């Protein structure tokens, strides 16, 4: 296949399909997340990183500009398709998280697949949701210890789930050999 720099239809299709696989997991995850919510201690925030794992995995697989944003948008709208519930909020959050990851990937010029980049992307996506949450959920009026707990858990979760776990998935995927098909064929040069 001819190597093309921009996103081809195949790239977009693979990105969206990766995102849809994750939107299944998101839907199941949503149940666990909600189950932990009544405790109020923000234990659910420890699971928060899962909401932007699709962006990081899709980037690690394809490594082209725009992939993280498309993946996060598709995963958010995928929840609409899987759960049959349209939520503008979900899509707005998805776009913001995808954009935050995208900025990190643009800084490394869409080349690095290191664990560190994944972790930083995960953390930045976690941070990016705060301004909106602050306004939407009136976080300024929350008891301070509770707010710090929420903040800490979410960042930790971004690093662990969207960063470390996403990287683990990427390495496992690489072993299957399926990545030879994808993107610019860079995986072939990586000795697969």
């Amino acid at each position, binding site marked *: *296949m001819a190597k093309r720099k921009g*996103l*081809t*239809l*195949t*790239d*977009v*299709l*693979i*990105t*969206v*399909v*990766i995102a*849809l*696989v994750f939107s*299944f*997991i998101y839907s199941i995850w949503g149940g666990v997340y*909600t189950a932990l*919510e*009544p405790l*109020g201690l*923000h234990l659910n925030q420890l699971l928060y990183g899962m909401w932007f794992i699709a962006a990081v*995995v899709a980037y690690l*697989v394809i490594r082209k500009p725009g992939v993280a944003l*498309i993946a996060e948008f*598709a995963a958010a709208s*995928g929840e*609409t*398709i*899987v759960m*049959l*519930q*349209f*939520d*503008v*909020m979900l899509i*707005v959050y998805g776009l913001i998280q995808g954009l935050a990851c995208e900025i990190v990937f643009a800084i490394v010029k869409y080349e690095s697949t290191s664990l560190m980049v994944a972790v930083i992307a995960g953390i930045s996506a976690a941070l990016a949701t705060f301004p909106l949450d602050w*306004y*939407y*959920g*009136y976080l300024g*009026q*929350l*008891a301070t210890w*509770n707010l710090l707990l*929420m903040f800490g858990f979410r960042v930790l979760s971004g690093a662990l789930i969207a960063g470390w*776990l996403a990287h*683990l*998935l990427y390495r*496992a*995927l690489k072993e*299957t050999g*399926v*990545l030879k*098909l*994808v993107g610019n064929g860079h995986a072939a040069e990586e000795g697969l």
Partner: protein
Amino acid sequence: MSEAVKRYITFADRVNPLVKILVAVALFLTVILIHDPNHLFHLAVIMFILLLLLSGVKYIYIGLLTGAILFFGFISSLYMIFYGEGTTTIFRFGIIHVTEESAVRGIHIMMRGITLSFFGALIVFTTRITDVFYSLMQQGRLKPKYAYSFMAAVRMVPIIAGEYMALRRARKVRRALIHRKYITGLKGFISAIVTLLSQSIRRAWRLGVAMESKGFDDGPRTYYHRTTYSIHDLHFVLLIVLGVILSAFLGEWFSPFDTVDAR
């Protein structure tokens, strides 16, 4: 949306999908700017009435959905009710401290969620998903490669679901033969996702190559399915704008909450 749940078609079904999405975004911004719980209460009620009248869906489904929306909305506002700041204590138990202010604020956050969910449900019930992408291409000038990859991917959702079920059954049958750690826990989770992902990537790649060679790429296209703007779009926008204005007036007239600012 599936025909099985529908009872009748309303003008909302004929509104351009792009217009509905733009109205949804505008409503999201409006709801964020409303700090008066009385105002928001009436907006939530109006959205519910619109869902009831315009979706054309059997009441049993709307009832089930409403129950779920209220339940999840309530649960997701508990963090504020339990730990929000306030001066007038209603209830205190250990670290939980419910005050009048935090309770109203929590309910306000819940009403934000349900207002948007009711409107979202109305959109889902009155829009066909393929029309969304046709509209994005024809009125939104979205490049066909994005729209067609989304539409193709949507068709794969049932296949992915089927694959997941097959994987579960296969694991059940072979449970005695494989080590437990490959079924449960992190290893099991990763092996399940990697299986689903690698299969899906392969399938997406095959389909992508086929679609590219058939010319589903960029470039000008003609369409069999056409979506257009119509007078229904204007009616729909006006209806929602009127709803927001009406809810503000009703909030002045009938106020279930003492305060006018939930902050």
